[in-house]
């Protein structure tokens, strides 16, 4: 790795692709998390989590995608079969980034089915661990194709619990409930509003507010000044390109 400075003099010169901004935005989800398990689902969140560990969140734990905890060099440092993983979820020392086939303005998430649950028009995976994850440890989301089909007014089935649903369900659901961020191919979103409705937190460079609004099926909270997702540093870019994803899986998930 080169010894270039961490801040790049002119951001427009970084030459980062959209997929690389997405990696940075996902990585930032784990900033400040300390010694917890990062559970990324999907290629870009996985690259992001490993980037976070390699740089600003060195204490994170990561798995090999199966039952082993592995260090940055691939060496095994622990054993985490599904049964222990589920216990770790309820113990709270974990921050997962899940996918979402549908997500609404309060962060309710659906990967179960589209249409009426009794007889869905499209059966998807099932609720998986969404219900247990969301009321026990921080859950962020990753959406590689931001559209009005995904960002919907109301999800067809609540698997991952959103802020309004948690509040309605009471202290058992709200006690450990937190959705730090939603990252899409267009920008970063959070719930830092009075009513915990979704807010545009940053735009990936090259994306406009209008584009995000048109691709979102509900009313987003949009601050007067929306920042851009931060630039990757040269050393971060080098890590992504040379170390973490030399085969370019990120560009298969997000074009451009």
């Amino acid at each position, binding site marked *: 790795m080169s010894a270039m400075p961490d801040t790049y003099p002119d951001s427009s010169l970084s030459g980062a692709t959209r997929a690389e901004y997405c990696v940075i935005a996902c990585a930032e989800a784990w900033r400040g998390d300390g010694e917890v398990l990062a559970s990324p689902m999907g290629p870009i969140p996985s690259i992001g989590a490993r980037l976070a560990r390699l740089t600003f969140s060195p204490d994170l734990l990561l798995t090999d995608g199966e039952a082993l905890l592995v260090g940055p060099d691939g060496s095994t440092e622990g054993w985490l079969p599904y049964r222990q993983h589920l216990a770790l979820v309820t113990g709270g020392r974990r921050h997962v980034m899940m996918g979402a086939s549908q997500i609404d303005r309060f962060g309710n998430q659906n990967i179960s089915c589209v249409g009426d649950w009794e007889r869905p028009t499209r059966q998807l995976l099932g609720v998986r661990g969404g219900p247990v994850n969301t009321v026990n440890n921080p859950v962020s989301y990753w959406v590689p194709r931001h559209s009005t089909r995904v960002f919907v007014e109301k999800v067809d089935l609540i698997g991952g619990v959103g802020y309004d649903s948690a509040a309605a369900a*009471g202290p058992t659901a709200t006690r450990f409930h937190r959705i730090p961020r939603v990252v899409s191919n267009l920008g970063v979103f959070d719930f830092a509003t009075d009513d915990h409705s979704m807010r545009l937190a940053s735009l990936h460079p090259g994306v406009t507010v209008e584009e995000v609004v048109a691709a979102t099926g509900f009313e987003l909270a949009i601050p007067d000044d929306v920042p851009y997702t931060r630039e990757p540093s040269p050393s971060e870019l080098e890590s992504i390109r040379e170390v973490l994803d030399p085969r370019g899986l990120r560009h298969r998930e997000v074009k451009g």
Partner: protein
Amino acid sequence: MGTGDKTMTADEAVSRLESGMTLGIGGWGSRRKPMALVRALLRSPVTDLTVVSYGGPDVGMLAAAGRIRKLVAPFATLDSIPLEPHFRAARESGSLELMEIDEAMFMWGLRAAANRLPFLPVRAGIGSDVMRVNPGLRTVTSPYEDESTGVCETFVAMPALRLDAALVHVNRADRAGNGQYLGPDPYFDDLFCEAARTAYVSCERIVDTAELTKTAPPQTLLIKRLHVSGVVEAPSGAHFTSCAPDHDRDEAFQRLYASMPWPEFAGRFLAGDEQAYRTAVETWHEEQS
């Protein structure tokens, strides 16, 4: 060591099952599924099953063959192919009754059954539509005030998932039913056996009891013989799902399974016995190369 020899064929194991039973199937997604036992089940007349599974192609095949009345599952997936096509088709045609619960709820249901408890409390499901689509789920309020909040919290009372029978596949077993896994994850196969009245364990290879710990540590001995009714030697018995370290998932064949119309697949690969299945798979692979 045990003196009882519980070895039997897959067909003999399945002959002990009855229509209408609640059947737990081990493994996870498309990993270490007891597929030889599932194939034997497909050859039998057993139907009207309640299947309890972290679902993979076991669920897909039994659903496609119309053997499942009710499924208890948090998902069904082929892992490298995210959506299980036959599970999807069954759900979209409205032919599958489903108890859709979270992964952790599922585990606690098995634990409750294994511990002869009617339920176990779990912080999961609350606030989600798992409660809406399972109106039978009850909650339970803690009899203890939480020290930090002063609140008596309310949890989901996950009912015990009691099983009439469990089917699991492991790497090695002895004739008495001591089962050993050699891969990285036990999944929940021991729990399935403990939650069941009877359990049938298939394995890649039956070995002498002493051999089980010759090259592997004792903590790989996942399943105890007192939970096991039958042991089936079934080399590649998890095919086409993975059975690490003995064999990987047969990705090419899984793609075929996921794309071929079910009647055609069943006609070509499942019409005969297990040996015929293996021959048909080999022939198909030869045609591809």
